[in-house]
């Protein structure tokens, strides 16, 4: 035993590296907090509710970005829900095993596409589509903005939501489904009355994890959101999200307070996604205990 023992060394190495990852998360939090201090001191709580973002006159309120992030993320979640639910249900309950495996692989591949490619695709296909809809509706046909960003986010989180829903439905005990079939329920009645209620908390957790991804997604959103740092006045408006304002302005921020304000937005985003992810994990943990 002792330091010379390879088994021991490997054990300590693994421990050290795992612990390192924990410190990394804490470190990122501290760095963000440190960088935000000037902005925190200067604006306090007004930073969260301020509607004006004016780097020239050094007025910094992050509310437009908070609103932009929440609208696009929840919009994406709502848009993706029917697709995620139906494909999750199809893969878990209806598709023959080989078809399900094949389709699951394709869905997993979707999750691996770089987000800049989703952004390009959105620029070429979603923007004209949204513009066409906007013209029909008689609103200003930007093509860009909140609806386009929500749509591209919906497509991007679909693979996560669908595969989590599939896994949750697969966890439903066979005995329960048989009990329902034994009472004369059809496949759809079993799914609706037994599988979905049983997996409900898991489905909610899966959707929260997907929401966490949507909240922080940067590249594709930045490409289609329109990058206007004002409070959106309608769901069709141009906007900015927390992630996209950081990406857009960070390299151009010449004043310290501007930089600090951007870092504070980063801190906010970090805390929100952390919170959403922790909530989802708690729900999943409780599910596994049962």
């Amino acid at each position, binding site marked *: 035993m002792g330091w010379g023992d390879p088994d021991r060394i490997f054990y300590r190495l693994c421990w050290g590296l795992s612990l390192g990852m924990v410190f990394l998360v804490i470190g990122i939090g501290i760095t963000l907090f440190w960088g935000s201090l000037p902005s925190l001191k200067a604006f306090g709580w007004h930073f969260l509710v301020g509607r004006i973002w004016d780097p020239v006159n050094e007025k910094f309120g992050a509310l437009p970005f908070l609103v932009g992030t929440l609208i696009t993320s929840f919009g994406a979640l709502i848009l993706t829900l029917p697709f995620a639910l139906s494909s999750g249900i199809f893969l878990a309950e209806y598709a023959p095993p080989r078809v399900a495996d094949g389709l699951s692989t394709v869905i997993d591949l979707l999750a691996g596409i770089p987000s800049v490619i989703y952004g390009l695709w959105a620029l070429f296909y979603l923007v004209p589509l949204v513009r066409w809809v906007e013209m029909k509706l008689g609103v200003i046909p930007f093509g860009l903005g909140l609806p386009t960003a929500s749509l591209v986010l919906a497509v991007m989180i679909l693979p996560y939501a669908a595969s989590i829903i599939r896994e949750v439905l697969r966890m439903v005990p066979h*005995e329960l489904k048989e009990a329902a079939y*034994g009472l004369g329920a059809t496949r759809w009645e079993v799914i609706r009355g037994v599988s979905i209620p049983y997996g409900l908390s898991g489905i909610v957790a899966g959707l929260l994890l997907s929401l966490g991804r949507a909240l922080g997604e940067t590249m594709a959103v930045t490409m289609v959101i329109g990058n206007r740092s004002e409070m959106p006045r309608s769901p069709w408006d141009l906007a900015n999200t927390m992630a996209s304002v950081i990406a857009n302005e960070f390299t151009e921020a010449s004043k310290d307070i501007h930089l600090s304000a951007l870092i504070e937005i980063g801190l906010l985003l970090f805390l929100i996604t952390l919170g959403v992810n922790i909530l989802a994990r708690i729900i999943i943990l409780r599910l596994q205990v049962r």
Partner: protein
Amino acid sequence: MGNRETIVDPRGPIIFDIRNLWAYYGEKPAVKGVTCKIPEKRVTAVMGPSGCGKTTFIRCLNRLHELSPGARVEGEIFLRGKNILEIDPVVVRRRVGMVFQKPNPFPTMTIYDNVLAGYKLLGIKLRREEADRLVEEALRKAALWDEVKDSLHKRGTYLSGGQQQRLCIARALAVKPEVLLMDEPTSALDPKSTAKIEELVVELKKSVTIVIVTHNIAQAGRVSDYAAFFYLGELVEFGPTSQLFTVPRDKRTEEFLKGKFG
């Protein structure tokens, strides 16, 4: 295949007339050419060592077998003269209920809703008084009413194993089936709960036909009027329990009853 003399037709009305039934998992037959008649409002015990096809056999009687991947059924199963293999399985399963090896109440439902699951899942709306009456009636039949009448709106999963199994019996009875299939319903229960279920089985045959799978010979002796002995997928012997237990006609039945295998 069991020869003629070892399969004795029951006296009195017949509910199931099974002819040359084969059940497969993929290419592998689990039930091999079973022919027999099941008497109405009697308890028929299905015995045999594990892996003999007895569970597969009763799962054919409400077409639950077909839910297993690659499963297939051949032959004829007449339920009051109609071949159930030609009827919508959903209809068959409402006429032929099932109680499983492991108590499986729906964990997301209350006791009350569990009893009514056969209606709720199918979206059948019941008037309040009718629902209350059905719940009480089914729970009384399952000898559970007195124990749960004050906690009807609690989750069914808080009950003990034996109570859960009786809840499952109530759930099956609530849709008023003609036949109740029971797949080793006491194998997960303690002796006291087992005794209660056995009492219940004897009581229930007044109103419903029961086919019960058991690997417990003594249990078959206590509860059944007729008994079937399966071995390696074949129905070796079928007849009145008293006769089959005292003067078995097939050597394999005799050996099984003596505890030589199983």
